[in-house]
């Protein structure tokens, strides 16, 4: 069923702009909006004692940065796919790259509602299967959307997995830098 849906997407006509502004951007709004409400009204729960509460300004700044990072991440991933396609999928276009990013990020963005309850443990439990699903979609969508054969698709999927993992780690590092410089919880540094 999933592969059939991806094939339907591959056959449909759309432009990268239409795909992004008509679909992806709305999904990308889900995690930061959920994060804002979770942070401001509930606080970061560590699983013990009172949650760490953030002010309205802090919550807004973090949510806006989060949104911008997701948008940048979306475009960076699409452009990376296009760049990688010269080796792995010569027939792929920028439009196809946008389609791949849309497919793999859709479950993650939808699952962004978990930010309404900002508990780290809850996030790990709730998001792990979602990341697994996105991983599957990554490998399933590349051969279909980028019009390449299965073996090349696996190689490209691995390379892209490396890129996305690195981007995820970067997000963690950027967050840590922001917290230390006053954007985030009150830390004694």
């Amino acid at each position, binding site marked *: 069923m999933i592969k059939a849906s991806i094939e339907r997407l591959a056959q449909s006509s759309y432009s990268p702009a239409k795909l992004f502004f008509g679909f992806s951007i709305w999904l990308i709004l889900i995690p930061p909006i959920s994060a804002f409400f979770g942070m401001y009204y509930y606080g*970061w729960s*560590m*699983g*013990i*004692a*009172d949650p*760490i509460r953030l002010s309205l300004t802090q919550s807004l700044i973090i949510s806006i940065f989060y949104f911008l990072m997701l948008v940048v991440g979306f475009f960076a991933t699409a452009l990376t796919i296009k760049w990688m396609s010269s*080796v*792995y999928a010569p027939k792929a276009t920028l439009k196809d790259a946008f389609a791949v990013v849309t497919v793999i990020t859709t479950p993650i963005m939808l699952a962004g509602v978990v930010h309404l309850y900002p508990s*780290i*443990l809850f*996030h*790990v439990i709730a998001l*792990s299967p979602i990341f697994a699903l996105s991983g599957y979609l990554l490998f399933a969508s590349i051969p279909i959307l980028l019009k390449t*054969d299965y*073996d*090349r698709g*696996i*190689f490209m999927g*691995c*390379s892209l*997995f*490396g890129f996305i*993992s*690195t981007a995820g*780690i*970067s997000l*963690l*590092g950027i967050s*840590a*830098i922001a*917290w*230390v*410089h006053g954007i985030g*919880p*009150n*830390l*004694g*540094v």
Partner: protein
Amino acid sequence: MNKDLYYTDSATIFLIFCTMIWAIVGMSAGAYLASELVMPWLNFDIAEISFGRLRPFHTNAVIFGFGGSALIATAFYSVQRTCHVRLFSPKLAWIVAIGWQIGVAVGVASLLMGYTSTKEYAEFEWPIDIAVAIVWVSFGVVFFGTLATRKIRPIYVSNWFYGALIIVVAMLHIVNNLAIPYSWTQAYPVYEGAQDAIVQWWYGHNAVGFFLTAGFLGMFYYTLPKQADKPVWSYRLSVIAFWAFIYTYIWVGPHHLHYTSIPDWLMTVAMVMSIILILPSWATMLNAVMTMSGAWEKLRTDPGMKFLVVSMIFYALATFEGPMLAIKSVNVISHYTDWTVGHVHSGALGWNAFVTFGTLYFLVPKLVGASELYSKRLVNIHFWLALMGVLTYIIALWASGVAQGVMNLSINDYGQLNYSFIDIVVVTIPYHWMRLIGGLMFLFGALLMTYNLYRTYAASKHNLPVLVKIPKVHPGNEI
């Protein structure tokens, strides 16, 4: 029969056998340690298996037992093939192979008995340090002796990496362990205070750099082109990356000592050099990815190839995450938390262990004269167990590390800490259960590999010794 016309691989076979034994011993100890973190009663009040003693046992067994045996084995195997000559001294090679096992076995046993210099990854006491140094220098004699007697003019890039491993690790080991003995089991280090810390982490991080990176890159640069059946994509890039790696890595150790009593400029130099290190690391990764390109069908046909592909992903990830954690603003949160432990294991399991597994699946059938492995299905099960295991492990420790980092530093409006130490311990428990599950999956995969490789050996041992004739050097490349 003129033996000089054939490669000699008996020491390599022995070392690969030891590699598998150490994998199981070292990883089992790791899994037991992970169990103790969530079930502390598992130490049964026995000092020898308490966390403080079992932890250095685990690290030394996996780094020097598993990693060291694999590195020496593959160095002996590949240096002959890339030099078109038999090992310089097969007898000395055997002494190295056996001496290394005795040195590491006695060393880790002494750690369980409570004898330790307390320097991380350099815990062995001075008599064992001297024995290890002698064996290591002998390894250098065999390796460089083989290089010196080579029949082919160019020195292949894998040998540059193995050579760096041997020279730099000898230097690190000897300098860091300089001490004045006052009994058979104890010695005073010649350094003190902040100097001792700087020298220790100059050793500590370069042990990661040259033992766990340069050595394994040597293994990788030999195995990958062989498995892909293609030359290295850019030989020039591999050599540039090698020298950039050598010049940069040696500076980065003090990033382990951010915000301590060492000079601030030294921390900054270490941080900057750590960030620069991304360039040679990723150049190597790019070279590897491009070398694999074109060998598309190998993922289906070659059981070890998928391990090499994934090892490169984790290499890229770990060599990006490491410099990021060396940034002072990140380090202030990540240091002294599980984030660092997760980072180390993404490198040690995802990169070092995966590249070793891929290499063993490639080498063992060749060494025992088997047409293929006993079971490709078991390789696939091993692959997925190992991949899921390492992902579970590092995701758990990322989450745990971030929670610990924030809780360590979180203060209220009066500047008082929001959380006590025991609060942080309690919060960490679920993640440590996840880590245990991930570790057990990885260990079970290693057990499957050992069984698979043993059955491959058992089914083909009548072929031993497998005689491989040394091919003639291509005209124009003779020395």
